[in-house]
Structure formats: C-alpha cells, structure tokens
C-alpha cells in the first residue's frame, strides 16, 4: 500500500484518498512546436523501475495537487512537495540520495 502525505493540508493517508496525475515536471510543447516534440510531450512517458516523480491530487481531502518522489518498485516515498515548481527541490534530491546513493541526481527534472 502506498502512503502519501499531502503537503497542502498535512494529512497522511493511503493512496485511495488520492488520485494519481501521472509523470511530473513535463515540459509543454504547444503551437509552434515540431511534430516530434508534440508527440513526446503528449504520449511519451518515462516508466522507470525505481525513482520516479509524479503528480498527485488529494481528491477526497483538501482537493489540492502536489508532487511526490517515490520508488515505483518498493513504493517507498522519498518525499512530497509543492505543485508550484517545475523542478525537483534540493531537499527532495538529498532525501533520494540518502536512500539511493547510486541514483543519478542529474536525471532529475
């Protein structure tokens, strides 16, 4: 079972109180972009075994969006953080490095 803490209201609950919003920190390619860029943005997603950054919504709680960094295999949550950022905060990167020393921090969005 995946347990998340919403940074907006502070509630820690299991995943059924939340709704998954897919991969986080996508860069939008809209009008004027190439077909390849648009296709990448619209359809192509990372699907790593291990560290992953995701968007979640506290749908049955405060209703707000947030970000989560977690391990897709072990379900370990490294941390949750504000939705108002397009990059991963340093303290979250540090937490991941503590737990996964061989993880390439340079791959973080």
């Amino acid at each position, binding site marked *: 079972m995946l347990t998340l803490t919403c940074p907006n209201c502070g*509630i820690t609950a*299991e995943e059924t*109180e939340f709704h998954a919003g897919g991969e986080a920190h996508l860069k939008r390619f809209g009008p004027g972009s190439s077909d390849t860029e648009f296709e990448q943005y619209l359809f192509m997603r990372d699907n790593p075994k291990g560290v992953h950054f995701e968007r979640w919504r506290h749908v*049955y709680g405060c209703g*707000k969006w947030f970000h989560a960094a977690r391990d897709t295999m072990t379900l370990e949550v490294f941390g949750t953080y504000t939705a108002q950022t397009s990059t991963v905060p340093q303290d979250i990167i540090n937490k991941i490095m503590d737990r996964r020393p061989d993880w390439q921090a340079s791959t973080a969005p």
Partner: protein
Amino acid sequence: MSEAVSALKAAEFTGGIAEVTLMDPIGMISVRGDLTAAYMKKALKKAVGLGLPDTRSVQINGDRGVAWMSPDELLLLCPYDQVSDTIDMLTKCFGSNHTLAVNVSDARAVFRISGAHSRDVLAKLAPVDLSPATFTPGMIRRTRLAQVPAAFWIEEGDSFRLVCFRSVALYVYDLLKIAAQPGSAPVFYSAKP
C-alpha cells in the same frame, strides 16, 4: 420561501452498535479566498464570532461554526434561515477583494453518528486513524466514506457530525446503517464489548 427538507426526510437508525440520524438542514457557506487576510478575520468575527481555525480544525460557537477545508477554503456553519443574512455580511466585509462566499446548504446532507461504537463505524468506512489518541475533538477530517467524499468531526463525547453531498445521502445512510448493524462491533477503538 419553500419549506426546507432534509435529503431523506426523517431517517433514524437505532438498535445497532451506533445510532445514525439524518439531521435537519443546517446553513453551510463555502468561503474561498486568502484566509490570512485581515478582512477575512474581520468577516469571520462578524459572521460566526470566531477567529480563523487552525489547519484541519473546526470551531463551534453555539449554532455557528467555522471549519478549515483547504489552504484557501473554509466552511461556515449557521442556522439554515440565517444563511442569506450571513452571506450579505461576509460580502460586505470582503468588499472588492477576490473572495467567494456561496450558499451550499442545499447541496449537503448532515448525519449524526453516536454511541460507544461511533469510532468503529466510521473506521470501517474511511481510511482514517480514528483512535481516540489521534482523532480528537476540534479536528475535522475530509476523506472518503467507501466511494464518496465526506467530512466529519466530533460533536461531543462519542457523537460525530458528518457532512456529505446531498445527492449521495441515501448511499451514505445505507453505508452507515450496514457499518452499524447489530453484532458488528469490532471492539477495536472501544474497549468495552
């Protein structure tokens, strides 16, 4: 004005491990805006006689109250027939500031769950730690009850107040009745069998 009736008219379940009662309609006003603004504090004082509640907490002052719903949302409680006056008062205090106060009384149903096993009944339906040490008076919890959203807080003692959407009132009443059916006490939060 037409007569206000609750979602299921009279609905009361007794004889189980907890009593479930559908309450008469109460006034509920959804307020959204900058909760920390001075005009918000002033408006709350005037409308319900209370200050800004802490994160995830509810304050009751007689037949009025205010609950923290999200970082930019509050739920105000007042007598059903005083909603319009209260909204007028709020709107005046908000002035031209980007803030919203809307009457949601008729979009909600209100239940009371009471009795020694009320915590057990709710714990069967919501993914919430309802141990007396963790869920205490003054807290409000927005969560799900089986498949629908709901919010609840402790009214007093072992009596809970629960709010859900009016459109799912029958579903929630049926859920609560099943969770409270005789002989179904898990004896988990309430030590007495």
